[in-house]
């Protein structure tokens, strides 16, 4: 029983194959549960474990699964039921799922088998961005091995349960990480998010009950099933359960990705794992959970990386992979860069996102170029308010996209003002 279950097989060199995976307890949970356990009992374990989605929103996984209509009910209708792994990891600064898929693909496959069994799904897809070609090859290899060993396909492990799993290589758009845009893309449609409700649990892939989970979320399932909810809850240092892959990028001494207990303080991640700031750089701020989260400041370093404390501090834990802003990089430049990315990745469906982000990008670019006007600050604030709230837009893309800007306006007001007053970027001019 490892304290770091997700990466226990990962040595950073050779990926785990089926034999090695089985040797460290892999597929034990599958053999024990599939056909033998009541899916409802499995669901209870997942609920009890308090596992929360690792894709960014942190929604309780067991609760998400419980919304899938039971087979045979009126709302369930007739036909296939789907499980989809969201492996479209495109959040800037986030590379945790890549590690899991490249190094230990069977862990994800087993998680999907168990999840599919719990929600009575018969078809699964791993929706993966095409840039992850190493992961794609390794997943395909692992799928074939799992099928050959009857962990996948018809009558898994001699049971009545059948589950076919496919790797779907996406053409790649950031918005495909939004679960309903992902489903549309998987159906061959434009990758536009859907209005919710109805949620995918009721009407998902091809209008059928569907669960979409992040890769890391699914990777936790075999361990929870094998070792129990109590064990999983005990892994966390704070209120939240289990471990998490945390990462740090930017000017730290050792950028990387590490599995740590939930609730590990940010300072510990930054100083002990990432080795502190690179020589000659000071911490100015950081995005705690990927590009679409609000900035936090050095004063927030002692926050534990748990969902609620980070939210109370005005940001989100997101994917748990931090992007560090140092004192010699221009915050406005960083924000402009991010907003350019988000404006480009807008699907173009709703007005605030499609037009609003492009406008924000245009204003930030003009500020960087020295053409900023004092009234632009008011404009940015107006746009941040217009775009910023969930519900104002069709999906969560634009509200997430605007978080670095909204928090940047609050924390780095002086930098914005300096750009306008100095007619250009003070960092480039070396004025600071």
């Amino acid at each position: 029983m490892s304290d770091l279950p997700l990466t226990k097989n990962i040595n950073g060199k050779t990926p785990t194959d089926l034999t090695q995976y089985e040797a460290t307890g892999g597929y034990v949970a599958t053999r024990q549960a599939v056909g033998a356990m009541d899916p409802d009992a499995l669901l209870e374990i997942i609920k009890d474990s308090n596992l929360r989605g690792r894709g960014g929103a942190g929604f309780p996984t067991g609760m998400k699964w419980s919304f899938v209509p039971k087979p045979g009910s009126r709302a369930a209708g007739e036909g296939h039921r789907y499980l989809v792994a969201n492996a479209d990891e495109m959040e800037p600064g986030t590379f945790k799922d890549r590690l899991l898929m490249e190094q230990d693909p069977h862990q994800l496959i087993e998680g999907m088998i168990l999840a599919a069994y719990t929600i009575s799904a018969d078809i699964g897809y791993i929706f993966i961005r095409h840039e992850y070609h190493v992961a794609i090859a390794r997943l395909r290899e692992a799928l074939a091995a799992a099928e050959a060993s009857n962990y996948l396909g018809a009558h898994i492990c001699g049971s009545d349960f059948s589950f076919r799993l496919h790797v779907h290589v996406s053409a790649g758009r950031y918005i495909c990480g939004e679960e309903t845009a992902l489903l549309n893309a998987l159906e061959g449609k434009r990758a536009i998010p859907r209005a919710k409700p109805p949620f995918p649990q009721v009407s998902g892939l091809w209008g059928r009950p569907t669960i979409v989970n992040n890769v890391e979320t699914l990777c936790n399932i075999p361990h929870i099933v094998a070792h129990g909810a109590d064990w999983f809850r005990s892994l966390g240092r704070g209120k939240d359960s289990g471990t998490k892959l945390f990462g740090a990028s930017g000017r730290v001494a050792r950028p990387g990705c590490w599995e740590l207990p939930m609730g590990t303080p940010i300072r510990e991640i930054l100083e002990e794992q990432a080795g502190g700031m690179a020589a000659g750089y000071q911490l100015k701020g950081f995005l705690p959970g990927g590009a679409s989260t609000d900035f936090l400041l050095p004063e927030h370093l002692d926050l534990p990386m748990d969902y609620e404390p980070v939210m109370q501090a005005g940001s989100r834990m997101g994917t748990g992979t931090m992007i560090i802003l140092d004192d010699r990089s221009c915050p406005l430049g960083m924000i402009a860069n991010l907003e350019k990315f988000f404006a480009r990745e807008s699907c173009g469906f709703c007005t605030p996102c499609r037009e609003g982000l492009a406008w924000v990008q245009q204003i930030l670019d003009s500020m960087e170029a020295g053409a900023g006007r004092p009234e632009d600050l008011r404009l940015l604030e107006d746009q941040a308010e217009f775009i910023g709230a969930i519900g104002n837009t069709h999906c969560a893309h634009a509200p997430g996209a605007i978080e670095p800007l909204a928090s940047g306006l609050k924390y780095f007001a002086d930098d914005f003002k300096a750009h306008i007053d100095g007619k250009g970027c003070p960092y480039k001019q070396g004025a600071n």
Partner: protein
Amino acid sequence: MPVLIVDGKELPGKAGTNVLEALLSAGVDMPYFCWHPAMGSVGACRQCALLQYANDEDSHGKIVMSCMTPVTDGARFSVSADRASGFRRAVIENLMLNHPHDCPVCEEGGECHLQDMTVMVGHRDRRYQGRKTTFKNQYLGPFIGHEMNRCITCYRCVRFYQDYAGGNDLNAFGSRDRIFFGRAESGVLENEFAGNLVEVCPTGVFTDKTLAKNYTRKWDLQSSPTICQGCSIGCNTYTSERYGQLCRVHNRYHQDINGYFLCDRGRFGAQHVNSPARIPQPGIRNEEGKYDPLSLDDAKAKVRDFIQHSSRTIGIGSPRASLEANQALRQLVGAGNYSNGMSRNEQVMHQIILDVLASGMKTPTLAEVAEFDAILVLGEDATNHAPLLALSIRQAVRNRSKEMAGDTDIAEWHDAAVRELAQDALSPLVIATPMPDRLDDVASQSLRLAPEEIVALSTEVSMYLSAGSESTASQASSVAQGLAELLRDARRPLIVSGTSLGDINIMRATVNLSLALQAVNPEAGILLAADECNSVGMAMLDNRLSVEELVDRTPETMIVLENDLESRLGAEFAKKMSAVRHLVVLDYLDNATVSVANILLPAASFAEAEGTFINFEGRAQRNLAVFLPQGSIAPSYYLLSTLNDDCLNDSFNDSLNNSTESVSSSHQARVQTIIESIRDEFSPLKRIDECAPDADFLVLGSKIPRMTHRASGRTAMQAEVSVHEPKQPVDTESALAFTMEGNQQQAPASLRSYVWSPGWNSNQSIYKFQTEVGGADTMGNPGVRLLQGDAMPAPFTIAPTTAAQISTGPRFVAQHHIFGSDPVSSQAQELSTRIPTPYVRMNTETATTLGVSGGDGLACQLPHKRIELSVILDDDVAAHCLVYPKLVQTIGLADVAPGDLQRIAGWQGPKDPLKPNLILTDRTG
């Protein structure tokens, strides 16, 4: 009924609808773009935002989209809160970033929903400093212009085109703020309902090219409520004019018929009014066969002379002319010498329609078609023959998805979600036709059968339904059994047929099947599409003598009213016509009959003449003149009735203006006299005067204006003649006036000549005239359904068709084409480019029998013309059927024996005869 609380006031809502619909139904000025009353909500534009409060204590509220929020009892909202109105203003500000400032040169200007909404939210100052996005526009065919820079990305166009109308060549491309709506490459938009993009688009991206030719702002158009002449559906339209030219046709909402949409034949075919082939003045044929112009008085005197000195004068009416014109003709020649202008075959078919409408069978309106959950189409090519029927059937097959949505608690208006849930699950639609049908893509089963096989199948299904015993059951084919059970077990099954194949037995078999079905499933309906805009009216007026019978009575003088007898009865018949000593023809467009007339009288088109038309469901509707005919052109009813009552002297226009003094006293509108004579003579037609108020009708002491109150430049229109404003022409024939003075807002729907409401300059203002969104007209739906009854008709006896009797030789089957088969709309210049070139379509086996292959040419020689046909091989055509398009060029082909077709050596026909070769002169892309 759920009650919403909006800004502290109670507002009635309706379960199953959304908050935007509730607000609009209550008359609230709520801005929106992407929501459409017929297409539901998707939440793209975010314009209809308001605040929703969680409970009574919540004073902050949350921004929600009213179109995406279901009506729930007691829910609290604020439309006027600063945050809500600020958000709506921000949406417009952001939509305007890339919108060009080209309103002054934009066709949409003045009736632009985007302009209206911009003014409504109060956005004024521009804060955006960046560059505007620019796109390349595309050539989309002769009907629709494309200016993508004006796009606000509401997705309405693709939702209408793909989801509602079943088109697949208009798409959204790209992403972010560079979404492009258009085709994969420049080219003609293929869908038959593409013209609706002009009205569906809230701004000026898709514009009406026919309007652009005679461009006039909405406020300067003179309009009237008209009835589409394109087919038997009787869609309600607004037709508009300026400077004596028809400018455009727009949809006129009718809850029971066309709803919000028109077909392209109706919308663009009306341009025939401007055709160079219009007959401008009376003419008399000289020895060389050419026409010498004649004054109207002289022409009438000649005709009177013919009538007086002829042993027999007959009158051939027309199912495309008004009841009034036909009645005037009938009164002129006497009932015994009048035919309604239909062939024997047509008369029998339309008598069947009449009998069904007057029976106790369930005959749905077009809107009700969408409520049926299983449809069988027998031989009716709805898309080409009665296009809006096809659009309704396309919505009906979605009933399955609505059921599924109900099971999953998804609201019907949540359009994208319903479509996602249902995927391709559709209610059953079975189509039995000889040739591929445009609705095949949504059909659960398509049967390719020759006409007599359709009759046989239908008979088999009826027998299976009425026998209900094992003995018959075992004899029925599995196809027939499947159909019978499908119809019997459906909640509401509908059988659709009509006159499109010209086959009486198909219609009889349809009636028999419906009777058998109604006996086992009382909810079953029957819909029979008629042929022309007034075919049912003609059957009701006087269906006794067919054209053939009457012409056989050796008349000396024959008066033909708006009817090309050659295209109706073939070239053989035309010979008989030329044997008549005096042939008098009233028409507005040149045709074969016109070309052999001795005296030609210039009739007014639908846009210049009042008239009553009865559609396929027996609904009488009044068409009102848009503008005065020019010169000596006059409404047919006027020409004929003045022949009758010795009224010499004047043109129609003068007659109107000279009679003004007596409006209040003795004068009665001439058309009204005829309407009253119809009403008094024919009891089934006794309610026709209810379909619109007569000429004496006033609102607040005034007639109803045809022009908007903002009409400009009226005084300048004839400035080259005189700078003094001329007296406006007087209209003593209808309740409308050629003026901008008067009260349009309070006009009954049958007299409303445009929709406009303060702040709502576009056609979106229609909701201000509805009792609720998508509901009845506040002033009552126009028109009156004349026929209903309780009795069930007796089933027809159809000679049983055995396999041996079904002919196995090749035989011709004429197919209607939305563009080309209607001789009137085909003369609209823009439409003419969409008419297919003559072809003959057959399956490979039939082609082998005839010894031809695909791409060959076949020809036949008729007495006065040669017909050449491109051979198209299509294994989706029923065996032995030679399908050819019903066009002017193919008139007479029905009389040719297929064996007489000659293969043309070295034929170089058009590449794709179904798609005409357009000359891309106006290509801009």
